C-alpha cells in the first residue's frame, strides 16, 4: 500500500503553491457545499440531540440542556419503540428478499429469448418515485375486493377453492331442525331410507334468496333413498309452518349432508332449483339429514392489508416490487462476468442445474450479492416515502419506521427538534458499520 498522502515536493518549488491553489480551486465548490450542508449539520444534529424541545437554535443550540433524556425517550416511548421494531423487521426481511428475488430473476432471464423485455419491465419501478409507488400500492391494497386488486385476486382464488355459501344466514322454521349457521343444521329425529326430510328455513331476506330459486316441490318418497327439500318456509300473509306450500320458494345450491348414527357424514349433495335433494343407495339404519355449515360460508370480505396487523409486510412487498429490478440488473451484470466455461464444465461433469446454481453460480456471485445486500441495507434504514404514502392515517403509527418518526417528531406537528435529532443520530449510528466497511474497501484499493 502506498502512503496515503503524496509526499510534498521540496519547498521552494515555485509550482507547489500554484499547484495546490489549482486543487483548492477545483475542490472549493464541492467542499463548501459539503461543509455547510452536510458536515456542519451533522455536528449540529449530534449536539442538538442532547438538548430539549425548547432549546434556542443558533449557530449551535443553547439552553434547555437535557443530557441523554432524548435517547431515553427514544427507547421508552411506545410509538418510537414500535418504529424501532418495524425497522428491525425491515432490516431482517427486505434486503435478503430483494437480493433473493434479484438473483432468481437474473439467473432465469438468461434462459429466455425475451430477457431484455423482462428486465425492462421488472426494472421500471426504479424510475417511479417511491412516493408514487406508495400511491399505486395503496390502491392495490384496498380492502374491498371490488376495488383492491390484491384482494380481488385472492377472492377469485378463494371462491374457486372454497366458494361462498348459497345463503348468508337463516334459522330453522320448526324446532325439528337444530343447530346454528356456524355448525350447520341437523334434523333432530333420525329417519330411515324411503322417508322424506323437510328442512324448512326462515329469516332469509328476499334479496338473499339465491337466484334461480323455483316453486318448492313436495318431496316424493323413493325406495332405498332419502329424499327431501330445503325451502324458504315463509309465505306473505301466513301459511302453515313446516309444510312446503304453493308460493314458497325452494333454496338451490344448499349443501346438504347425511349423518349416520355414529355421527359420521356418509353422503352429501347440493339442492336443485326447487330445493330438492336425494341421497340414493342409503343402507339400513337410521340417518339424520342436515344442512352443512358451508352453505352459510361468508363470501370473501377482503384482507385488511392496510390495517395495523399487516401494514408493515404490505409495505415491504411494495418495496420489493421496486427494488428487485435493481438487484436483478446488478446481479445480472455479475452473472455475465462469470465465465461460461466454468458453468459448462460443471454441466459436462453431470451436475444438475440446481447443483450448478448452488455450488458454482452463487459462490462466484458472492461479492456482487454482498454489494447488493449492503446497498439495500443502507437504503432500508432510510425508507420513508413509501411508508407514509401506503399507510393510511389510522395505521401510520403502526407502519412507521425510524426515518418516518424522525420526520413526524421534528416536523409532523410535534416539533420536538431535540427528540428528532436523537432519532437522526440513532439512524446515523446504524449506518456507521457500513461506512467503515466502505472506507476499508477504498483503503485496500489505494
Amino acid at each position, binding site marked *: 500500500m502506498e502512503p496515503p498522502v503524496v509526499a510534498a515536493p521540496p519547498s521552494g518549488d515555485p509550482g507547489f503553491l500554484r499547484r495546490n491553489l489549482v486543487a483548492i480551486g477545483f475542490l472549493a465548490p464541492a467542499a463548501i457545499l459539503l461543509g455547510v450542508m452536510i458536515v456542519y449539520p451533522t455536528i449540529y444534529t449530534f449536539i442538538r440531540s442532547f438538548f430539549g424541545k425548547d432549546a434556542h437554535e443558533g449557530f449551535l443550540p443553547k439552553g434547555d440542556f437535557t443530557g441523554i433524556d432524548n435517547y431515553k425517550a427514544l427507547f421508552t416511548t411506545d410509538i418510537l419503540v414500535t418504529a424501532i421494531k418495524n425497522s428491525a423487521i425491515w432490516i431482517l426481511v427486505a434486503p435478503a428478499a430483494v437480493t433473493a428475488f434479484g438473483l432468481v430473476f437474473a439467473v432465469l432471464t438468461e434462459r429466455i429469448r425475451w430477457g431484455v423485455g423482462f428486465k425492462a419491465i421488472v426494472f421500471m419501478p426504479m424510475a417511479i*418515485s417511491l412516493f408514487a409507488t406508495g400511491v399505486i400500492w395503496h390502491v392495490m391494497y384496498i380492502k374491498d375486493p*371490488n376495488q383492491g386488486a390484491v384482494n380481488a385476486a385472492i377472492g377469485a382464488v378463494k371462491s374457486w377453492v372454497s366458494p361462498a355459501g348459497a345463503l348468508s344466514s337463516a334459522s330453522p322454521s320448526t324446532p325439528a331442525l337444530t343447530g346454528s349457521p356456524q355448525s350447520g343444521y341437523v334434523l333432530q329425529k333420525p329417519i330411515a331410507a324411503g322417508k322424506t326430510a323437510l328442512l324448512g328455513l326462515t329469516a332469509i331476506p328476499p334479496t338473499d334468496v339465491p337466484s334461480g330459486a323455483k316453486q318448492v316441490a313436495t318431496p316424493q318418497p323413493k325406495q332405498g333413498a332419502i329424499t327431501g327439500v330445503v325451502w324458504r318456509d315463509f309465505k306473505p300473509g301466513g301459511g302453515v309452518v313446516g309444510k312446503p306450500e304453493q308460493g314458497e320458494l325452494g333454496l338451490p345450491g344448499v349443501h346438504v349432508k347425511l349423518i349416520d348414527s355414529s355421527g359420521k357424514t356418509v353422503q352429501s349433495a347440493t339442492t336443485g332449483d326447487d330445493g330438492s335433494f336425494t341421497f340414493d343407495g342409503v343402507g339400513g339404519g337410521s340417518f339424520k339429514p342436515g344442512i352443512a355449515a358451508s352453505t352459510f360460508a361468508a363470501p370473501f370480505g377482503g384482507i385488511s392489508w392496510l390495517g395495523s396487523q399487516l401494514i408493515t409486510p404490505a409495505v415491504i412487498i411494495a418495496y420489493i416490487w421496486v427494488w428487485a429490478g435493481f438487484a436483478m440488473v446488478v446481479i445480472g451484470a455479475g452473472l455475465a462476468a462469470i465465465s461460461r466455461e466454468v458453468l459448462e464444465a460443471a454441466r459436462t461433469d453431470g451436475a444438475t442445474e440446481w447443483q450448478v446454481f448452488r455450488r458454482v453460480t452463487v459462490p462466484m456471485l458472492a461479492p456482487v450479492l454482498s454489494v447488493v445486500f449492503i446497498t439495500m441495507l443502507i437504503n432500508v434504514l432510510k425508507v420513508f416515502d413509501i411508508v407514509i404514502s401506503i399507510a393510511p392515517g389510522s395505521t401510520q403509527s403502526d407502519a412507521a419506521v425510524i426515518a418516518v418518526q424522525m420526520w413526524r417528531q421534528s416536523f409532523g406537528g410535534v416539533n420536538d427538534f431535540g427528540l428528532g435529532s436523537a432519532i437522526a443520530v440513532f439512524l446515523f449510528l446504524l449506518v456507521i458499520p457500513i461506512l467503515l466497511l466502505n472506507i476499508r474497501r477504498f483503503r485496500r484499493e489505494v
Partner: protein
Amino acid sequence: MATYEADAGPIVVADPNERTSARITRAVAKVPLNLFLAFIAVLWLMPTLGLFFTSLLSPSDYISNGWWRIFSKPSLATFENYSNVWNTTDIPTSLRITAEIAIGGTILPIMAAALAGYAFAWIDFPGRDILFVIVIALLVVPLQMALIPVFHLYNTLHLYDTIFGLILFHTAFGLPFAIFLLRNFFIGIPKDILESARIDGASEIRIFLKLILPLGLPAIASLAIFQFLWTWNDLLVALVMARNTTPITVDIFSQLRQFGSNIDIIAPASFMSMLIPLVVFFSFQRYFVQGLLAGSVK
C-alpha cells in the same frame, strides 16, 4: 446462452432430424419457465397499469368498480379526471416547480462534482486521500442528519420555501455519490493523454474542459439521469424545506391525507408525476444501468 448454442450447432449437424427434434425438446422444456416469467412480468406491470386505469375512472364509477372493470362494455374510461386536474388544481404549477428543482438539482452537483472528481483523480495535493475518505464517509450519512439544522439555516438565510433552497439541498446530498462516481471514472482515463497535454503546457482548467469532460461524458450522462430521477422523485426534502413552493410529490401527499374522496385527483396526478421519469428512464436506460453498476459494483 446464445453463443453456446451457436457453438454447439456444428457438432450435431451430422443428423439434421435429430438436431430439429433436440431443438424442439429444448424449446418445449422452456415452456414452463417462459410461462412463469410471463406471469412475473404481468405481476410487475399490473400495479402501474392499475393506477393508470384507476385514473381513468370517474369518481362515481370508482366507488363501485375496481380498475379492471374499465374493460367492461361500454368502457368506463374517461380522461375527464386529467382535464380536471390540469385545469382546476395547482398540479401544473407543481410540475413546473418539480422540473426546475430537478434540472437545477442535476446540473449544479454535476458541475461541482466534476471539478472535485478531477482534482481527486489527477491533481496531486496534500491530504488528497484523507479528503476522499471523508467524501466516501459522507456517502452514507442519512439526510435526516441535516434536516433540522438546514431548516433553521434556511429560515435565517431566507432560503426556506424557495426553489433555490431545494436545489441546494439536493446538490449537497448528491455530491458525495457524484464525486465518487466521477473520480472513479476519470481515474480510468489513460495517463498518457493527460501527461502529454500537461507537457504541451495546457492549464489544468483547459485540460478539464477540453479533455476530461468530453471523455467523461458517459459517466456524466449516467450521473445526470440518477440525479434527475432522485430530485424529481423527492418527497422528504420538499416536505421539510418548502410550504407553498412545492413539487408535485408534496401536492399529492397533502391530497393523500384525505384519501378516499379524492382518488380522481390523486391517481391522475400521480400518473402525471411518473410520466417524465418514465420517459427519461426508457430513453436513457443504458446509461442508467451503467451508472448503477459503476456505483455499486467495482
